[in-house]
């Protein structure tokens, strides 16, 4: 008997299973390449990382590593002040750079959403830092912020007279945060602009027109119409930016190397130095895992907090 709509009558269990197998077989070639890549490059290193974090890892002969349980984690949380310096600097970087990037990115997007001459050029200019290599701009910033008569010092000391004397930007704990953060912000604004611009352009004209008819001025239209409609974008952007901020590495590594005396270390540079300078791979991996877990917790919390607002 032929049924045109097989869903009307439930199929026997064996047929259902075999159909699922067939579907699986059809899907497998599409899923497998990605799945294998994820297994090899994400899941396997993660498992291996968790394993390494429980050992005093012996680099040339892993099989002779000593099992030390949670000692690496205990060391990070209770015995290692530099770890907390790295945590402080990482959070500080996120707290400062994320909101500034969002505000500047949104501002640029609003300006470039209007009909101004040459806006394509401006958009390209804002986006240029995003596609420039971290390596190259870090070296450029190292030059700009160099000691003594470096360009930034020269500008602030000799031209606008804001600073009484040159600042050793890259060699002291707090001044060093400036080039690191300015670089992060400068490099990130363009990306925010593009995302916000896309979101702005998806807002229907009718809503603004209706608001105009209701007598709303430009500021009211922005705060009452545009901003609420951008909430999903804010959520997306802030999650991505916070994850990105926690992963700050190249700029710190190249601008200060974590110095002086490890006081500008962030979690990733500290992880790198533990592994490659101190050859303490077990501890380095531990720092990396703690960072990974923190990022996951943050992502989860952010979703929970903003879910109500979005829906």
């Amino acid at each position, binding site marked *: 008997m032929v049924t045109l709509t097989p869903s009307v009558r439930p199929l026997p269990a064996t047929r259902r299973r075999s159909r699922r197998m067939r579907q699986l077989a059809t899907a497998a*070639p599409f899923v*497998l*390449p990605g799945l*294998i*890549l994820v*297994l*090899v*490059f994400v899941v*396997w290193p993660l498992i*291996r990382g968790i394993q390494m974090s429980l050992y005093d890892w012996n*680099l*040339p*002969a*892993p*099989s002779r590593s000593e099992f030390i349980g949670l000692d690496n984690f205990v060391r990070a949380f209770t015995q290692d002040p530099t770890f907390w310096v790295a945590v402080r600097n990482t959070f500080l970087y996120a707290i400062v750079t994320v909101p500034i990037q969002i505000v500047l990115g949104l501002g640029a997007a609003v300006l470039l959403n209007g009909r101004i001459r040459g806006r394509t050029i401006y958009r390209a200019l804002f986006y240029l830092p995003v596609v420039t290599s971290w390596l190259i701009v870090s070296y450029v910033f190292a030059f700009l912020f*160099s*000691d*003594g*008569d*470096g360009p930034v010092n020269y500008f602030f000391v000799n031209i606008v007279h804001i600073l009484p004397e040159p600042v*050793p930007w*890259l*060699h*002291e704990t707090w001044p060093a945060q400036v080039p690191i953060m300015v670089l992060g912000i400068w490099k990130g604004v363009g990306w925010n602009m593009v995302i916000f611009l896309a979101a702005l352009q998806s807002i229907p004209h009718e809503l603004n027109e209706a608001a105009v008819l209701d007598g709303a001025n430009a500021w009211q239209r922005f705060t009452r119409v545009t901003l609420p409609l951008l909430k999903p974008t804010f959520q997306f952007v802030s999650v991505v930016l916070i994850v990105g901020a926690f992963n700050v590495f190249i700029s710190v590594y190249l601008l200060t190397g974590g*110095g*002086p*005396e490890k006081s500008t270390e962030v979690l990733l540079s500290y992880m790198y130095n533990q*592994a*490659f*300078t*101190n*050859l303490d*791979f077990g501890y380095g991996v531990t720092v990396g895992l703690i960072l990974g877990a923190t990022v996951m917790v943050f992502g989860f919390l952010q979703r929970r907090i903003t879910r109500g607002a979005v829906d």
Partner: protein
Amino acid sequence: MRRRAIIPTIAGLAALTLLAGCSGDGGEQPQAGDDVCASETPVTITFWHTYSTDSAENTQLNDVLLPEFEKECPGVTVDAVVMPYDGLHDQLIAAVSGGGLPDVMRMDIIWTPEFADLGVLTPLDDLDGFSDIANTVLPGPLSTNEFEGQHYGLPLDTNTQVLVYNSELLPEPPTTFEELTADAEALKSQGVYGLALGGAGPWNVFPWFWSAGGTVTDDSYTKATGYLDSAASQAALQWLVDFNDAGLLGPSSIGGSPDSWGGFSGGDYASLSDGPWIFPSLSGDMGDKITGAPLPAGPGGSISVVGGENLVTFATSDKQAAAWEFSKFMLSDFAQGAMAEVGQLPVTQAGLESDAVTSVPYLAAYVQQLQNAQARTPVPAWPQIDQILTDAFTAALRGSKPVDQALSDAASQIDPLLAGD
């Protein structure tokens, strides 16, 4: 059928990663060495070095040395690979953990104890012909290969720093610290710094710290407390700090601009302490003005720092015999002489006295200074100690820490590293 092509590739990648995960702690014992040169099927060894791609050293290696070696030892072919020095240490560490080490490598002398301690280098003492070579090379460079009573490499080339000065600004090189200070004070009025260092790390500071009477550890490298923070060491670093505070030391010493070479060739800095490589690089711009002399003597004498490279064989290699044949060749008079022609200072007394060295005027000061040059603390934890000392010297020169505190902080951080924790 793209899928067919992709899946084996991924499987291959996966297999590679897995293989890399189980890193090789195996490796074979050196075999009897005589027959490898005569073997029918050529053995190819991989040789990593840091001669830059376009350098005269690299050309000499590929056009003169390797053809000669392959003529003398037809059974062995050398695949010489240029490795950029920047980041190389970390790249090696990654290769130790993930596989992919070469057979033979020309490595910075300061890394040898670290990699020997990791157990990835072949001890050479029992190999055929080692003692003959050990007897002909200079003891200082040879000692940088020593770790726990065994030698894990051969010195390949050596270098040191001398006072490199601009003879237009300094007609006579200072021979004592007093003369240096007097010269620098005279130059200050012309807006010229008497001396500049390339940075505040041990490589740059040690010649002045040692010459001023400072020490880092005891003679057997077991303790820094009592040495690095001794009164003599404090006075030595204080001398450099005072010299800097008096405005006599160029800003490049603590990372400012112009950098040491730029400032020197531009006439902002009258002298530097630097290695022989500065001469071929700057003599084009500066002509005869760039001159070298032994370091001025301070309370501790005129003591410079030994640099250079060692030739090591990795224990992970399964071509130990071929690697050893190549190592012996690189220490031969022919190879040492050929590299001396392109500015690599030989490690044998005979090599230092050869025409290749004596015919190059600027090398005379270096050969003389090598009699009074010390190695940096040859211990596995040197990279960490290097960082700690850089921090201490930088803090003292910047005035962010008093000299005594900077040195005692550093000593207490270095002690556990020397104890092997």
